């Protein structure tokens, strides 16, 4: 793997990790405060989960696409 791909991989993974930690902080806060505020806070938990999933999927797609392009160029 060339250094640019390696850097991209590191950047993408730490982006996922940062979003995951932030999202989990929201979800855990919501869960701890449950059941008293479950109606309004469920939306925040749902939003945080969608953000984690969206970020992970987007970064995975970018990385996979980049490697596929590299493979095609080499072939």
């Amino acid at each position, binding site marked *: 793997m060339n250094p640019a791909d390696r850097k991209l991989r590191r950047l993408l993974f730490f982006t996922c990790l940062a979003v995951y930690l932030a999202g989990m902080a929201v979800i855990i806060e*919501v869960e701890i405060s449950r*059941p008293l505020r479950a109606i309004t806070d469920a939306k925040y938990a749902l939003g945080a989960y969608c953000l984690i*999933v969206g970020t992970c999927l987007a970064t*995975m797609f970018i990385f996979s696409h980049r490697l596929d392009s590299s*493979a095609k160029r080499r072939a």
Partner: protein
Amino acid sequence: MTAHAAEHIGGRSPIALTMFVVIVLITIAISVWAARRMRSARDFYTAGGRITGWQNGLAISGDFMSASTFLGVIGLAFAGNGEAAIYIASPILGLAFLLFYIAEPLRNLGRYTVAQVISLRFAGRAVRIFCALSVLAVTIFYLIAQMVGAAALLQILVGLPNSVAVILVAALMMLYVLLGGMLATTWVQIIKAVLLVICVLLLSYASLARVGFDAPLLYKLAATQLLLTHGTSGATGALGSPFSALSLGVAMSFGMAGLPHLLIRFFTVPNATEARRSVLYATLIIAGVFLLVVFVLAYASIAFVQSQPQLFDAKGQLQGGANMAVIHLSGLLGGDWLLGLVAAVTFATILAVVAGLTMAGAGALANDLYVQVWRKGETSDLQQVRAFRAGAIMVTIVAVVFGILFEGQSIAYMVSLAFTVAASANFPVLILALYWKGLTRRGMLAGGTVGLLSSVVLIVIGPAIWVNMLHHARPIFPYAYPALASMPMAFLVAWIVSRSDPAHGNREDGLLFDRLSERAQSHGTLATGAVSH
């Protein structure tokens, strides 16, 4: 609930029982079909490497969405345990890590087992023995969870006693594995993943339809019910302590990259590109199912099932335990048809996962211990397959014994233990072997052994086994989830031992690492087939 304590569902619903039997028969038919297509050991172990990325993605999601997802996570939420949130969000990060760092090198370097990849860098019997033992430890913990779920399901559906139910599950899983090998296991996973997605969609639709597609109303009903049942007692489970919450998150994220039955799936695809695609598809499916499982079905089970007194026994326990909340929900929402379908698909889910786990465990026994350690690599294809079948029988016997002993334990918790061992023993060894040039054979063995032993010992002396099963007054290790202690310990020991090893910085080892790295990261251009062993 025991068979004698309550009326079982199959007794009052022949429809549910019939659907259950039909789905089990379909999966057996797949095994027979796969058995006829097998020509070689590679067909048996890795489906001949002919599975596409999309099919493998479905199979990976099928492997991951085990009893813990459907029964366990909803069961946790039903019992008012907020840590269900960690169970659904953390694996998504784990899948991203798998794609960035593991899928491609594993596909390019391996053939049948993860141990073969590690052995490319570090030869020797001790390495094979360690790899086999760590795979077996993870497999056994994971199998126990599935056995407990399957037995509870059979108890509630047909009224079988726990031990008989566990033996029946074991017999069926042996049939899949011994007949059809990886090809059968993969196709059973694919079909089961599709059925599970359909079930989740149907149940979510029915749940939302019951409240007029007004999600806030569903949350309000659930909140009211939680207040009635659990009062205002805030954090529950792992969320009560930052160490436990973080530890569970670490186990569920990085354990993904150490689960042997998931990792061997990358050997079933033809190249690295398909391996990457399979992780992407798996993430899409798993994230979608988890979204509905927690944000619709968990709330629906709290809102609707907890308000049905006839589903609880005299002690106030849900029939079959909290793990069965979603099964009761399906009966409430769609009557016998939906209950039969959901129960059958859940059972097929468990069977498929145990078959995949048995493949991984038996592969470790046959390939790593028998072929490489005992016979020093000199065996025919036929002998390998025979050894594999003997290994499958041994794994099954162990699973039956533990499945009976662990009756009634939380499925999700049992699965988290498998993730803990995977994150502490397999993950550090695999990631360091793939990416750290300075790792030595001694460092790898020391780090892996410390990770394996510390995770297992801390689990045993923790509250779940030391207090709940062995009935001591207080646990020696206070936390139920030890990954935050055991995983860093494995990395630290591997680093210290490698740095102090005279072999550290050896030129030949460095050249071997460079050669393997080039092959591992070849993006599917160098390695359309795995390296030969």
